[in-house]
C-alpha cells in the first residue's frame, strides 16, 4: 500500500510539469501583453527605443524571452544589421509596423545582440550603422536586475546596486546624431576595451548554447521562480501567492463544505431509494434529483439569491462576502457568521454534486443487494437494518468513493460561477478578475493551483478506493 501511494505521488510530478507547460504556453499566446505598447524617440541617441518603464516591465516579467525554446544564439550578424537598419530607417523607408517590429525584436534579443553589434561597430561601412550599434550596445550589454524576492534580499539588493552602477557606466558610450568627428572613435575604443574584458560572457560554448536553449526561456524562468514559491506579482505589485492563499481559503471552505454535505446527503438518499427501488417515493426522488441535475448552477444561484437574500420576498442571508466586517470576536461567533454567509453558495454547489452522487449510491446498493451474501445474511435471520447497513451499504459505497476524484474538479470549476453570483472573493472570482485585468501571473497561478487541487483529489480518491476495496491488487 505504501509503495503504491509512493508511486502514485511520484507520478504526480511529471504530470504537473506537463500541465504547467500546456497552461504556460496557452497563457503566453494571450494577446495584449503589457510590453506591446509603441516606441518613442530617444532624443539623446536618436535610437527609437520603448520607454525605460516598458522595458523594465518586460524584463521583470520575462516577457522579452521566448516561451519554451530559445534559439536566439543562432542569429547572425547580417540579420542584426537588417533589424537595426529597419528599426531606424537608415536605408530606405520601411513601414511603421515593420519599424516597430524590428525595434521590439532588438529590445527582446538583449545580450544575444552584443557579439554582432560589436562586429557592426567595428566593421560596418555605413557610419550611421556604426553609431547606432554603439547606442544599441548600451541596452544589449546592460545587466538585468535580479529578483529580490528569491533568496537573501540583502544580497540581491547588493547585486542590483552593483549592476545599476555597471549599467550606468555604459550609458554614456554612444554619440548623438551629428556629434563631433572624434566622438565615434572614442566610443569605439571604449567599447573595444570593454569587449576585451567581457568577451567570454558573450561567446557561447556548446554547453552554454544548450543551456540557453532550454533555460533562458520564459517557461524555465517561471519554473525557477515557482521552485522558490514565487508566483510573480500582480500589476498592483502585490505578490500573487499571498492573494492566492487568501482566496484559496474561501474557495476550499465552500468546495469541501459542499463535498462533505453532498456525500452526507447522497448516501442515505441513495440507500433509501435503492431499498425502496420501484416505489412511488423512489420515483419522486428520481425526478427531483433529475431536475436538480439539469438546472444550471448560475440559474439556481441567481434564483436562490433573489429569493432569500435580496429581499424578494425575504432577506435571511447576506448578499455577498465570506464573513462580516469586522469579524466576530469569539471563535464560535465567527464560525456561525461564516456558515451564515456561505450557506447559499454551499447549497447551490451541493445541488450539482448531489444528484450524480446519489444516483451512483443507488445503483451501487442495487447491484449489491441482489448478491448471494445478502440473501445469506437475511436467511440467517439478521434484522433488515443490519443487513442493509452492515452488508449492503459498506460494499455498495465503493463506486461512489471513486467519484470523489471526478467531483473535485467539477466543484473547483463551478466555483467560478458560484463566487461570481454570490460575490465571494474566492479563487473563481479571482480568475475572472485577473482575466479582465490581464494579470497573467495570476491567471497562471490560479490554473496551476486548481490543477494541484485536482491532482490531490484524484490521489485521495485512488488511495481511498484501494484502501476500502480489498479486491484491488496494489502492486
Amino acid at each position, binding site marked *: 500500500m505504501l509503495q503504491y501511494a509512493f508511486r502514485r505521488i511520484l507520478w504526480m510530478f511529471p*504530470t504537473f510539469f*506537463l*500541465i504547467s507547460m*500546456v*497552461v504556460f504556453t*496557452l*497563457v503566453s*499566446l*494571450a*494577446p*495584449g501583453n503589457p510590453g506591446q505598447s509603441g516606441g518613442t524617440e530617444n532624443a539623446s541617441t536618436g535610437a527609437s527605443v520603448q520607454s525605460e518603464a516598458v522595458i523594465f516591465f518586460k524584463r521583470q516579467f520575462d516577457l522579452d524571452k521566448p516561451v519554451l525554446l530559445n534559439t536566439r544564439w543562432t542569429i547572425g550578424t547580417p540579420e542584426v544589421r537588417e533589424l537595426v537598419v529597419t528599426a531606424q530607417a537608415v536605408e530606405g523607408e520601411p513601414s511603421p509596423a515593420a519599424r516597430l517590429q524590428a525595434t521590439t525584436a532588438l529590445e527582446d534579443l538583449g545580450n544575444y545582440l552584443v557579439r554582432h553589434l560589436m562586429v557592426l561597430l567595428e566593421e560596418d561601412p555605413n557610419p550611421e550603422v556604426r553609431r547606432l550599434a554603439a547606442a544599441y550596445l548600451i541596452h544589449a550589454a546592460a545587466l538585468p536586475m535580479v529578483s529580490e524576492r528569491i533568496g537573501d534580499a540583502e544580497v540581491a539588493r547588493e547585486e542590483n546596486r552593483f549592476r545599476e552602477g555597471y549599467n550606468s557606466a555604459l550609458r554614456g558610450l554612444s554619440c548623438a546624431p551629428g556629434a563631433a568627428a572624434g566622438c565615434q572613435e572614442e566610443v569605439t575604443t571604449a567599447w573595444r576595451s570593454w569587449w576585451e574584458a567581457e568577451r567570454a560572457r558573450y561567446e557561447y560554448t556548446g554547453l552554454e548554447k544548450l543551456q540557453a536553449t532550454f533555460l533562458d526561456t520564459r517557461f524555465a524562468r517561471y519554473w525557477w521562480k515557482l521552485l522558490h514559491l514565487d508566483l510573480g506579482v500582480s500589476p498592483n505589485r502585490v505578490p500573487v501567492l499571498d492573494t492566492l492563499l487568501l482566496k484559496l481559503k474561501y474557495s476550499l471552505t465552500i468546495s469541501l463544505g459542499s463535498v462533505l454535505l453532498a456525500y452526507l446527503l447522497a448516501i442515505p438518499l441513495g440507500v433509501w431509494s435503492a431499498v425502496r427501488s420501484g416505489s412511488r417515493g423512489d420515483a419522486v426522488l428520481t425526478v427531483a434529483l*433529475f*431536475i436538480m*441535475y*439539469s*438546472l*444550471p*448552477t*448560475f*440559474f439556481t444561484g*441567481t*434564483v436562490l439569491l*433573489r429569493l432569500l437574500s*435580496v429581499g*424578494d420576498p425575504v432577506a435571511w442571508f447576506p448578499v455577498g462576502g465570506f464573513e462580516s466586517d469586522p469579524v466576530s470576536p469569539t471563535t464560535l461567533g465567527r464560525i456561525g457568521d461564516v456558515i451564515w454567509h456561505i450557506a447559499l453558495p454551499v447549497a447551490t454547489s451541493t445541488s450539482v454534486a448531489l444528484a450524480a452522487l446519489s444516483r451512483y449510491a443507488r445503483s451501487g446498493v442495487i447491484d449489491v443487494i441482489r448478491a448471494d451474501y445478502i440473501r445469506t445474511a437475511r436467511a440467517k435471520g439478521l434484522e433488515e437494518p443490519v443487513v442493509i447497513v452492515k452488508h449492503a451499504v459498506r460494499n455498495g459505497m465503493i463506486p461512489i468513493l471513486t467519484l470523489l476524484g471526478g467531483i473535485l*474538479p*467539477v466543484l*473547483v*470549476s*463551478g466555483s*467560478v*460561477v458560484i463566487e*461570481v*453570483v454570490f460575490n465571494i472573493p474566492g479563487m*473563481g472570482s479571482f*480568475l*475572472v478578475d485577473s*482575466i*479582465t485585468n490581464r494579470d497573467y501571473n495570476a*491567471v497562471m497561478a*490560479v*490554473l496551476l493551483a*486548481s*490543477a494541484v487541487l*485536482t*491532482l490531490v483529489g*484524484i490521489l485521495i480518491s485512488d488511495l481511498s478506493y484501494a484502501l476500502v476495496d480489498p479486491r484491488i491488487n496494489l502492486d
Partner: protein
Amino acid sequence: MTESPRPAPQDDPSWAEIVWGQFRKRTLAWVAMWGVLLLLAVAIYAPVFVSNTPFVWVTADGTSFPWFGTLFDRTHYPSGIDLFFNTLLVVGTLSFGPMIWAWRRVELRPRRERTAARQRLVGVTAAGWALAFLAVLAAGLQRPEVYYEEEAARLEAAGTPATAVWPLVRISPGDTDVTRSMAPPTAQHWLGTDAAGSDVFARLVYGTRVSITVGIFAVSLYCTFGTLLGAVAGFFGGRVDALLMRLVEVVICIPSLFLVLAVAAFIPERSIFHIMLIIAGVAWTGPARLVRAEFLRLRELDFVAAARAAGFSKAQIIFQEILPNAIGPVLVSATFGVASAILVESTMSFLGLGDARVPSWGQILATGRTYSSWVLILAPGFAIFTTVSLLNLLGEGVRDALDPKLRS
C-alpha cells in the same frame, strides 16, 4: 457439393434498426426525442414566427414578398448561424418530403441493400444541404435594411395604409430601442425587453439556434477528434498509447471551466465558433478514453484476427472492422455532451465571456441578474433547463437502447 443460395429474410433487422426498436419502447426517451425535435423546429423556423419583416407587403406601388428576401441577407442576419438555419429552413423543408419517400421506398428490401440505400440517402442529403449553405455564404447578399414597421406607420399617417401579412411576433432579436429599455411584459413584447430595448422573447427564440449550434457542432468536432485519437491509441498501444494517455491526463487535471474561461478571454473579438472550438479542445478526452478502452478490448477478438489474416490494411481494420463496434459508448456520451456543451456556452455568456453579438440564453440571464428582473431570470433559466433535461433524458434512452443486457 452445391448449395442453393439462401434468400435473405425480409425482416432481418440491421444494428441501427434493433437499437431504434429498443429506443421506441422507452416512452420517456421517445417523448424527449420529440421534445428535442420540437426545439430543433423552433430553431429552424424561428423567422417564420419572429421577424420584423412581413411575408406579404401590399401598397399602392404593388405587391412584394420582403420576408423571403431577408432570409439570406447578411444585413438582416449578420451571424453565420442564422444563415445556416435559414438555409435549413428552405432546403430542409423542400427536401423533407422526398427524403421520407426515399426512406420508405426501400423498407422491404433485403437488409444489406436497404442499409446501403439509406446511408447513401443520408449522405447525399447532408452533402446537398452543405452545398446549399456554402452557396448562400458565397453569395453574401447584402441589402440596406428596410424597417417595415416604420414604413407601415408612415403610410398609415399619409392616409394610404399598406396591407401586410406579418409573422406572429413583429420584431427581430437584433432590433434595439433604448427608449423602451427593461420594459415589463406587454402584448407587444411578450417577455418584456432587455437593457438595450431588444425583445426578450425574440432573443430567447433565436437563442435556441445558438445553443443548438454550439451543442451539436462542438460535440461532433470533439467526438470525431477524440474517437480518432482513442482509436489510434487503443489499436497501436505501447508508446503511442502511453503518450496520448498522458496528454489526456494533463487535460483532465485542469478544471475545464477554468481553462475554457482563460482561453476565451485571450481571444479578442471571439465569435461563437471560437467558443465551439474551445469547448471541443477541452472535452475531447471523454470520447478518446471511451474509444481507447473499446479498442483495447476488441482488438484481441477473433474477427480482428480474421481481418488480419485476410490481409486487410491497418486503416481498414481500424475504420471498417473495429470502429463500427466501438462507436456505441461515444453515441451515448455525445448525447449527454450536447447538454453539457450547451451548459458551458450559457455559463460563458452568463459570465460575459461569450459572443456578445449573438443572442444567448446565458446573456439574458446575466441581464436579469444585473437589473433584478424576474422575467429575465426565469425565462432563459427555463429554456436552458428544458433543453438540458430533454437531452439528458434522450441520452439515458440511447444508453438503455444500446445496452444489449436490457434487450427484451
